[in-house]
């Protein structure tokens, strides 16, 4: 076997390997087919060189025809085996692609449905927080809660203003009453003055009665009685004054108590209102943040969905790869059939009877059968060398 033939064989094997690698790695349709054509050409050229009786052998070598034929048969057998490998590889490429594409598709569908579930969950969350949407009536929202607390606080403030108003009104009445008491004390003092004057008059009367001697004895008794009456009047007057003083003291104590009721420190209410306003502002901030966050998530979701759509579209490459693998298989089957013909041609050289037209018909039929393939094997040009 010549060195050139060996290199041709190596080149053929290398080109087939390249073709397989291209099919697996590249999605350039035209380039793949070109590589396949290159392989076919290389294979046929190798086979034809193998089938031709080497000139050097004819003239210089003394090897017998049968040895050549057996060598050719061996070469044909190797190529046939390689073709079978390529065929099997084509099948496994197709299977692998189909299986993985199915898995990828179902993964992407899962991703889509999860993403849309996520979207729904976010929407539900937002409607729950904002108190909008279905079934929101009667549910407590953060804003509702805050405004309810505000209303209660307002009622509370209103209540103690009312209490203060009534208390101050009561205090005014108490002060009026105290004034009445003071005028009563003036009256009591006046009564006391009258009683004292009466006492003095009675004393004068008693003195005048004593001066009158026996004739004034009766009058002295009357004067004495008048003095006694004025004293008991003073005594009663004093009791009334004491009671009135007590009443005044009691009323002053009541005034103090009412005053305590009226005087509430407003700082607590101011602080409470301040806290509430702060909380309301905070809540508004939280709502704003939630809304922004949800909008972001929705945007990301939409992006994810768009990406998934793109990925699903890209998965269509799988069909192309499958079709290409099938074309390779068809081509390889064609090559195998040609190898069969070559083998028969080879063997026929040993027998005296050569039925070349029958073999040519077989070869033609192989090309007709392979005509569905995109690769036009008949134009490879190697058939002219053979026939």
């Amino acid at each position, binding site marked *: 076997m010549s060195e050139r033939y060996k290199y041709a064989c190596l080149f053929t094997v290398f080109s087939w390997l390249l073709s397989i690698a291209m099919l697996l790695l590249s999605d350039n349709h035209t380039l793949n087919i070109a590589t396949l054509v290159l392989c076919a050409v290389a294979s046929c050229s190798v086979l034809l060189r193998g089938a031709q009786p080497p000139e050097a052998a004819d003239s210089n070598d003394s090897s017998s025809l049968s040895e050549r034929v057996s060598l050719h048969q061996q070469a044909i057998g190797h190529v046939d085996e390689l073709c079978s490998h390529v065929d099997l590889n084509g099948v496994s490429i197709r299977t692998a692609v189909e299986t993985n594409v199915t898995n990828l598709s179902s993964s992407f569908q899962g991703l889509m449905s999860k993403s849309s579930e996520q979207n729904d969950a976010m929407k539900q969350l937002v409607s729950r927080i904002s108190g909008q949407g279905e079934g929101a009536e009667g549910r407590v929202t953060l804003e509702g809660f805050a405004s309810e607390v505000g209303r209660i606080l307002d009622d509370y403030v209103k209540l103690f203003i009312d209490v203060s108003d009534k208390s101050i009104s009561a205090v005014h009445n108490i002060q009026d009453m105290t004034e009445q008491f003071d005028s009563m004390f003036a009256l009591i003092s006046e009564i006391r003055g009258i009683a004292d004057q009466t006492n003095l008059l009675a004393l004068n009367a008693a003195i005048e009665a004593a001066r009158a001697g026996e004739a004034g004895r009766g009058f002295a008794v009357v004067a004495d009685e008048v003095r006694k009456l004025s004293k008991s009047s003073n005594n009663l007057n004093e009791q009334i004054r004491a009671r009135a003083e007590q009443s005044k003291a009691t009323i002053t104590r009541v005034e103090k108590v009412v005053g305590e009721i*009226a005087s509430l420190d407003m700082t607590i209410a101011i602080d409470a209102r301040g806290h509430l306003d702060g909380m309301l502002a905070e809540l508004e901030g939280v709502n704003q943040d939630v809304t922004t966050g949800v909008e972001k998530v929705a945007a990301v979701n939409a992006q994810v969905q768009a990406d998934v759509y793109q990925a699903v579209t890209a998965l269509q490459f799988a069909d192309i790869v499958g079709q290409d693998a099938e074309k390779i298989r068809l081509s390889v089957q064609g090559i195998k059939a040609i190898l069969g013909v070559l083998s028969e041609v080879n063997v026929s050289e040993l027998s005296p009877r050569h039925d070349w037209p029958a073999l040519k018909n077989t070869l033609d039929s192989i090309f007709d059968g392979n005509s569905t393939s995109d690769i036009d094997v008949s134009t490879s040009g190697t058939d002219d060398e053979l026939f």
Partner: protein
Amino acid sequence: MTIKSRKVTDSEYEITLGETFDFNCVEEFRTAYESADDGGKKDFVIDFRATHYMDSSALGMLINMQKYWQERNATIRLINTNPQVKKIFSISRFDKKFTIV
């Protein structure tokens, strides 16, 4: 006397409050606005410029003053309120009952 009152014109009457306006002022305050009553229409100006503390009884006093003058056709303006005092008036919705400057 922490509360000073003065007649500005025939109708206008000015009451200037002390540093605190609380229960201790009840009698003085009442005297200040009742003593202005001469049967005519009155425009009261209550000056809070010195006041830095007041409790709820102040609100009660003001409401009682308003009730006293309600049927006598008077206006009551609260002026020079500091932020704290203004806040109390705002929380108690007094800004709807009185003119607060």
